[in-house]
């Protein structure tokens, strides 16, 4: 920082761009320029943040207090104010709208917990197993990154083909080849849809956990393993006593990121099920989408979005508080 405030040597300054007035102009507003420079650099980003984030969020909050049905979309200023009605409707769990929202919330929580847990488990196991070199490790790593690289819709459409009742691979294997089911079950409607959604989500999500955990493993000093080996700790013990504890800070970030992504995921259920998901797999983002763009009630949709945001902020803040306290006490 200090060097930034050191005036450049005059000789070099003169040799710099063909700009005769420069030294004179620099002298007086130099301080001002130095102060305003970071803001000038930030200006494009600030403007865009304003346009794509802050204004829409403000509009979203205003929308949530209005009765914004399809009649008012072309002129939303004319939509009547309804105060907290949209919120009351959303959290009135005895009425159909609130009940459906609550159901969708629980589905999303269950889905997120299972998906994040499985992604973390598979990703960590794969990373630990691939910590040491063996033949074909590089190739396998590339294979494992395929779900991550494929565009979401291409991958999910393929899964939806596999889950087709009559023409899909899943039923062919389960029913025709293994005889595990009496008849061909439906996977994309009814209760099974939750399993289908979870499978696709884990298939797509675990490579990210794998990548992050692998990077975390590289930060563990080799000496720790050597010392443990000298002390007679076996491979499994080393994994349990050194690898997993050392991954804690990495895991804390990883789990939070996975949680937020999975909780907010729209792409997977939308491509798998379309505009309205089966009840068993009615994730909250699809639910809000549906109440806004299918039943055209933007006011309620906005209120639900704001509630979702509040919930996510609360969970994130709580999580960060707990993990940072854990980190502090671990340091002591």
């Amino acid at each position, binding site marked *: 920082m200090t060097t930034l405030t050191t005036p450049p040597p005059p000789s070099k300054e003169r040799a710099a761009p063909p700009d005769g007035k420069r030294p004179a102009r620099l002298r007086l507003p130099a301080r001002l320029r130095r102060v305003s420079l970071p803001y000038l650099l930030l200006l494009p980003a600030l403007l865009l943040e304003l346009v*794509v*984030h802050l204004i829409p*969020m403000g509009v979203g909050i205003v929308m949530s207090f209005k009765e914004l049905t399809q009649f008012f979309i072309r002129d939303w200023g004319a939509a009547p104010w309804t105060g907290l009605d949209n919120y009351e409707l959303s959290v009135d769990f005895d009425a159909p709208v609130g009940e459906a929202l609550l159901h969708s919330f629980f589905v999303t929580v269950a889905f997120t917990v299972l998906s994040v847990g499985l992604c973390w488990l598979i990703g960590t196991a794969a990373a630990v197993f691939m910590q040491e070199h063996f033949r074909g490790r590089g190739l396998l790593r590339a294979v494992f990154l395929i779900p991550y690289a494929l*565009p979401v819709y291409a991958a999910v459409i393929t899964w939806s*083909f596999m889950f087709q009742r009559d023409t899909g691979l899943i039923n062919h294997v389960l029913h025709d080849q293994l005889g595990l089911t009496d008849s061909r079950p439906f996977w994309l409607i009814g209760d099974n849809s939750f399993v289908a959604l979870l499978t696709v989500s884990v298939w797509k999500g675990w490579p990210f956990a794998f990548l*992050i955990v692998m990077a975390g493993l590289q930060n563990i000093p080799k000496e720790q393993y050597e010392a443990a080996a000298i002390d007679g700790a076996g491979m499994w013990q080393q994994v349990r006593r050194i690898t997993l504890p050392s991954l804690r800070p990495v895991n804390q970030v990883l789990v939070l990121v996975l949680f937020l992504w999975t909780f907010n995921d*729209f*792409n997977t259920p939308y491509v798998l099920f379309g505009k309205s998901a089966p009840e068993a797999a009615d994730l909250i983002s699809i639910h809000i989408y549906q109440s806004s763009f299918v039943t055209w009630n933007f006011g309620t949709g906005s209120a639900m979005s704001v509630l*979702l945001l509040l919930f996510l902020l609360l969970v994130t803040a709580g999580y960060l508080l707990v993990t940072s306290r854990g980190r502090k006490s671990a340091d002591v």
Partner: protein
Amino acid sequence: MAAPRSFLWSRRIFLTLLAGFVLLPVYVMVSSSLKPLQDVSGSFRWLPSGFTVRPYFDIWKTVPLADYFMNSLVVAGAATVCSVVIAVFAAYAVSRYRFRGKRVFTVTVLSTQMFPGILFLLPLFLIYVNVGNATGIALFGSRAGLILTYLTFSLPFSIWMLIGYFDSVPRELDEAALVDGCGPLRALFRVVVPAAIPGIVAVAVYAFMTAWGEVLFASVMTNDTTRTLAVGLQGYATQNDVYWNQVMAASLVVSIPVVAGFLLLQRYLVAGLTAGAVK
């Protein structure tokens, strides 16, 4: 450090099963795209009864795939370029200067990254429709409008990642340039940007991949002429006859650019992503 047999066997079994799980859809995608229609409209067959490349020619006629391709390319490309260029300036400011409001800025950027897309979709939709009515500028349904919505996720991500990258470029480098009489912008483009090229590439690839795979905004904010691949591909699947072999062929074709790009730039991308996440 000799691994015990139990470890080696667990590793072998686990990794084999996992590779099978990962590759199963890839196998289905590739094999089904080379099957005649009767093979994909009956019960699933592991091996095709006949081998055909017809689906690869038909996909362009069943839906205007080339148009969708172009739309995706323009939208994802423009969103990537915009967000990376703007993020370079912002990240440089955050990484190298101390100023009032820095913390507010970084926290805002970080938190918008975790917000659900649906939160921005509803207001943006409304704003676009109303701006269109008031001024006649057709944002809704236009490529420009879609590009702007893509910045909701690519910009915060790019800023956040690039701050990390610029922090890892030694300060002494650009400070020396400043002492030598370079202006701050010249120091940025002559010294910091070249030193952070791997990071910038990683951010660009990631932003492009995310935009290429985006479904939510694309499904609401596009019309017949601006539809992207994400929405267009569903065109095969919702018709009365589902040409699954064509769906699979099209999925493969739209995946090839990003998967190829990913494999080429994998090293940068993985390093960048993990550096950002582990830090």
